[in-house]
Structure formats: structure tokens, C-alpha cells
């Protein structure tokens, strides 16, 4: 588990990040979706603009959950590249007068030893859950005392 240098990421938009946040959460190496909207001029007015992420694990899997309201299944792209899991979501907004679309993305660093072949993702109520199976050697082992 390591920090991803922020400058390597194409969606490096916000100039300021919460420094404490960055240290506390190894997975929060990138600014949360919400920060993109804190830029002046972007959707001001509503209090909750966060498109956040969660990371969990159990013995067999890692789980990453992403908040992607209003995004259809076919507009989500999940990619694992060099231990970095990237989720891109295309949002389309239609009103009577105009139509706009934009891409939101978030990357998280995943530990070594994830079986990349069998990653699965599920979209439910605007929350995307990505399931990353742990490779055999990563699973906890019980050693019998002989």
C-alpha cells in the first residue's frame, strides 16, 4: 500500500488538498471527487457534492465502493493497472435546453497480490462496488501446532 504521486494523474485539478487527510489515509492519495466541485464556479449551492470511496477487506477479497449517482452501468469503466485501480464514470446531464457530459474518475492504490483476472464490479443505487479477490499467498493462513 503506497501513496500515488498526485502529479502522475491526469485529473489533477485542485490546487490544494487536505494535507492531514493525505497522510491519514493511504488510499486517499488522490483528492476525492467532491473536491473537484469545490472549484469556484462548479455547481455551487448544494452542501453535499462528495463522490466518495470506501475500501474494505475480508479474508478472501478487497472491496472498493464508489459513489456514482446518475451513472449508467455501461458508462462505468474499471481498470487495474500496476496496482492502481481506476474508476471512470461518464455522466450525462440533460435539461430541456442543454445537454452536457463529463467524466469523473478516482484512483486508489491496491495492495500487491490482487488477482486481476477475476475482478468484478456491481452497480446498485448509484454505488459501485468493485470486488478484488486476493491472491492465494495474501490470504490469512492458520498454522497447525504440531
Amino acid at each position: 500500500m503506497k501513496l500515488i504521486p498526485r502529479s502522475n494523474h491526469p485529473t489533477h485539478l485542485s490546487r490544494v488538498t487536505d494535507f492531514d487527510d493525505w497522510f491519514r489515509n493511504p488510499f486517499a492519495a488522490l483528492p476525492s471527487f467532491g473536491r473537484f466541485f469545490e472549484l469556484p464556479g462548479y455547481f455551487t449551492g448544494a452542501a453535499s457534492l462528495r463522490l466518495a470511496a470506501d475500501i474494505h477487506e475480508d479474508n478472501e477479497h478487497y472491496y472498493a465502493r464508489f459513489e456514482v449517482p446518475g451513472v449508467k452501468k455501461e458508462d462505468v469503466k474499471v481498470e487495474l493497472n500496476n496496482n492502481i485501480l481506476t474508476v471512470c464514470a461518464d455522466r450525462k446531464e440533460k435539461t430541456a435546453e442543454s445537454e452536457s457530459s463529463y467524466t469523473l474518475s478516482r484512483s486508489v492504490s491496491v495492495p500487491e497480490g490482487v488477482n486481476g483476472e477475476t475482478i468484478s464490479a456491481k452497480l446498485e443505487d448509484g454505488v459501485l462496488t468493485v470486488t478484488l479477490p486476493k491472491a492465494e499467498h495474501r490470504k490469512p493462513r492458520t498454522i497447525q501446532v504440531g
Partner: protein
Amino acid sequence: MNTCCIPNDTRVEAPAETPAIKPRYFVDGTQDAYEVRVEVPGVAKDGISVDLDQNILTVRAKRKASVPEGWKTLHRELNDLDYLLRLKLNSQVDESKLTATLENGVLSLCLPVREAAKPRRVEVR
């Protein structure tokens, strides 16, 4: 056709335990209907209530960001939330025709404007 927010509404109504958060929303109005879309990611259908009282539309949504048993949390940003949105409608809407659908974490409301409230064009003879 406009809507406006009631100032400070979230603070007045917020219960003590979980603070109510105003969701991101869009309003699109035509002459015949209001279309309101409210972003409520992670909220199930039965966690939503929509009320219309005296031209004030209230949307409440409860999100349970529960973690299945056996999962160990490594990093957390999705929390239990109460969403609260109150909008004042400037036109009379037909309550009986109000429809609400939830899809992909977005609640879409359609509020048809009452016939009597629609603008009328008067022919000059």
C-alpha cells in the same frame, strides 16, 4: 417558473444524531411540469419519502452505508446520511399526478402544473 430554497432549512430540521445534508439537485421546468432530480447515492427505494405540503416539496432520504458482516474497513468516506431537500414551488402543482422514480441513485420527480396555474394566452380580437 422558479423554485427557491428555504434558507437554513437543513439546520432547523436536522435530528441530533445524524446531520441532514442537502443533496445535489437539478430543477428543470417546462410550462406543464417541474422535473426535479435529486442525487441520493446509496439510498434504497424504501429509504425515501416525498411530501408536498402547501407548495413546499420535501424530500427525505436515509442512506445506510452499512458494511456486510466480516468486512474490515480500511478506508471510509461513505457514511450513514440523512438527505433533506426542501423546495418551494412557485406554481400550483397537481398532487395526484406527482410521480417519483429512483434510478442509479438519482430520484426523479415529475410534478405536473395544475391547469389553472398554467399561463393562458388571450386572443385579442
